[in-house]
């Protein structure tokens, strides 16, 4: 029942075969790419199934499966509110309410990118350049989150060093991304979405089988509420099948605000203004294609996020009640200081005894786990149960929660890493063959999202910034623009890989994703919704809204949101060690920027628009028709 710990010939053959099929589909798309419209928006003739799967596969990445699945392992099933918002807002509202007006206006204004749509709607080159720059600067942070998700699984499942896995994954993605335009990307997305769907469906069934059924698994998880890690209990954690404690003004309500404002609202609302998703609406020729994409999209998201968050939470019951590890104890670390929480200048550590286990009998350590806490930390977690077997091996019941089981090595130190929860669970609980299926699932999830992220980064810098500031000289071919797009992509990939190299631990995948989604919502959503539905919104209103949304979001991340402000380091220098300007006011330092920046951005759009001259009727006719 254990996944192979090294890359065998079968894994290599399957991965190569998968990459060959993806490469062929990408080449097929490349062959049919003749014009800028083909490259940017797939010729506006995408099939509804291809569009729906491409939208879903781009939306759902290793960030959702590994990052947010790991957060569900930490904080529980309350994250399912994000599944609801992902389906209701991310699919139904996005496709039914926003999709068709976006498609019609995109066609009317001949827009090829999201910034171009906004720029032409408001007749403003500044808006197009500003939106392009926001995407170019911040999208690599989100891309890094997706890359970390894939890297964590390869590291956990195949015992490859994190940095080596990061380089291998980045190289595969870079070659794939640079090859073709959106047509190739959408063809491969449809294949990758199908692989993701099958992989997650199998994971759900396998998880419930390993726990003895649906109700039994949930009941076991409910009953182990007393095992919640002490630090989380102080933040309001009440068990993995309960929402955290709700309230305001005391630190014991922090977790509710983290789950609801960062995880649920940050991503659930932010999805409506994702440039790489909005552009998908412009790839279909009529509303009928959008109507047909809705059922596929809804069911796909339910199977992806619903399964990831459910399995993440249930992994606690598996590690605590069901996990049995048979092997030889290769070595013991009698006292290790395990990093539980890492901030810029301070670390919270647990004093533990560690076991290093050789499961395969090859003399190599396959599993590292906490045997027991030491001293004052002994009461924080139950000790692992070790039974000697007649053949000299031992059977170990770790009796761990998902958090205390996610032990990883970082340099010379040991660290509990929530982003390793799903990889550790799949490696331990699932059969060997599923490890390979899940590897392809995550590879598909990562590549389908990253390809669109860098496609968006490239077109943002090439078409929305460079081509607006430096118009093509007479006689220059469109090749010049394409070169800038590719250089922009390479630059974005390098930034993302550097970020992924340095940022590991502290559920960074979910946090980086939420920051980007929240920033997009605050900067773009009022202008997008206003531009589609409110003819009175003005260029000045849209510009003021975008600047307000992005400025307030950035200010909040740098100065108020403790987990990011503390890591960036400006606030500790200004305040003599505090992690947030509002550190003395409970709950404020964990509130996500979107809760502050989006209402302000919307208010500014309305007030400034009403205070400025309405747009010309001739321009509105161009945008909306009669």
């Amino acid at each position, binding site marked *: 029942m254990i996944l192979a710990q090294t890359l065998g010939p079968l894994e290599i053959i399957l991965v190569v075969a998968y990459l060959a099929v993806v490469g062929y589909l990408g080449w097929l798309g490349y062959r049919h790419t003749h014009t800028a419209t083909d490259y940017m928006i797939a010729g506006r003739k995408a099939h509804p199934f291809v569009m729906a799967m491409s939208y879903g596969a781009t939306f759902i990445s290793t960030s959702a499966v590994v990052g947010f699945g790991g957060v569900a392992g930490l904080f529980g099933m309350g994250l399912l509110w994000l599944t*609801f918002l992902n*389906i209701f807002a991310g699919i139904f509202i996005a496709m039914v309410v926003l999709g068709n007006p976006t498609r019609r206006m995109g066609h009317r204004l001949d827009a090829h990118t999201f910034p171009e749509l906004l720029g032409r709607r408001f007749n403003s080159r500044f808006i197009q350049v500003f939106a392009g720059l926001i995407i170019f600067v911040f999208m690599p942070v989100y891309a890094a989150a997706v890359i970390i998700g894939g890297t964590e699984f390869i590291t956990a499942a195949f015992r490859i060093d994190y940095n080596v896995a990061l380089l291998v994954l980045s190289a595969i993605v870079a070659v794939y991304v640079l090859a073709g335009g959106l047509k190739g990307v959408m063809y491969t997305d449809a294949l990758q979405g199908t692989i993701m769907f099958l992989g997650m469906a199998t994971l759900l069934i396998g998880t419930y089988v390993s726990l003895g059924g649906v109700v039994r698994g949930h009941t076991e998880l409910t009953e182990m509420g007393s095992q919640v890690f002490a630090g989380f209990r102080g933040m309001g954690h009440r068990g993995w*099948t309960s929402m955290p404690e709700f309230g305001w003004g005391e630190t014991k309500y922090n977790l509710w605000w983290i789950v609801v404002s960062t995880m649920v609202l940050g991503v659930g609302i932010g999805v409506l203004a994702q440039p790489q998703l909005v552009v998908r609406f412009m790839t279909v020729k009529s509303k*009928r294609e959008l109507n047909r994409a*809705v059922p596929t999209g809804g069911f796909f998201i339910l199977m992806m996020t619903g399964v990831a968050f459910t399995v993440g939470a249930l992994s606690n019951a598996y590690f605590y009640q069901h996990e049995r590890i048979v092997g030889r104890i290769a070595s013991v670390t009698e006292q290790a200081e395990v990093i539980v929480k890492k901030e810029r200048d301070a670390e919270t550590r647990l004093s533990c005894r560690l076991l290093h286990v050789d499961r395969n009998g090859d003399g190599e350590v396959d599993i590292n786990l906490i045997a027991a806490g030491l001293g004052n930390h002994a009461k924080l977690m139950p000790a692992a149960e070790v039974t000697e077997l007649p053949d000299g091996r031992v059977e170990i019941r770790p009796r761990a929660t998902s958090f205390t089981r996610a032990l990883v090595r970082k340099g010379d130190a040991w660290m509990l890493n929530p982003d390793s929860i799903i990889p550790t669970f799949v490696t331990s609980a699932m059969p060997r063959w599923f490890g390979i299926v899940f590897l392809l699932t995550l590879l598909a999830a990562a590549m389908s999202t990253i390809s669109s992220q860098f496609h968006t980064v490239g077109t943002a810098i090439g078409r929305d910034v460079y081509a607006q500031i430096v118009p093509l000289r007479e006689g220059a071919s469109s090749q010049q623009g394409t070169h800038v797009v590719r250089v922009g992509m390479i630059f974005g990939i390098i930034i993302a890989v550097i970020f992924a190299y340095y940022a590991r631990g502290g559920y960074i995948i979910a946090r980086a994703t939420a920051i980007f989604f929240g920033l997009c919502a605050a900067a773009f959503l009022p202008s997008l919704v206003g531009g589609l539905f409110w003819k009175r919104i003005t260029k000045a209103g849209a510009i003021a809204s975008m600047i307000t949304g992005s400025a307030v979001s950035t200010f909040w991340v740098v100065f108020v949101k403790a987990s990011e402000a503390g890591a960036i380091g400006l606030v500790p220098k200004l305040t003599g060690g505090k992690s947030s300007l509002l550190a003395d006011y409970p709950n404020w330092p964990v509130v996500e920027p979107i809760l502050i920046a989006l209402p302000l951005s919307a208010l500014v759009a309305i007030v400034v628009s009403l205070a400025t001259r309405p747009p010309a009727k001739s321009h509105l006719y161009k945008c909306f028709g009669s």
Partner: protein
Amino acid sequence: MFGIEDPCVWMAYLLSVASTILCIIYGAINWNRGDDTVFQW
């Protein structure tokens, strides 16, 4: 419900499934509607 006692959690489950059903019904009703395929300037 299904071994989960907190109504705030199983409500999220139910609403997720209900939203998916809404998507499927919407798609089925509008399967053949909206063929408005589409400028001098």
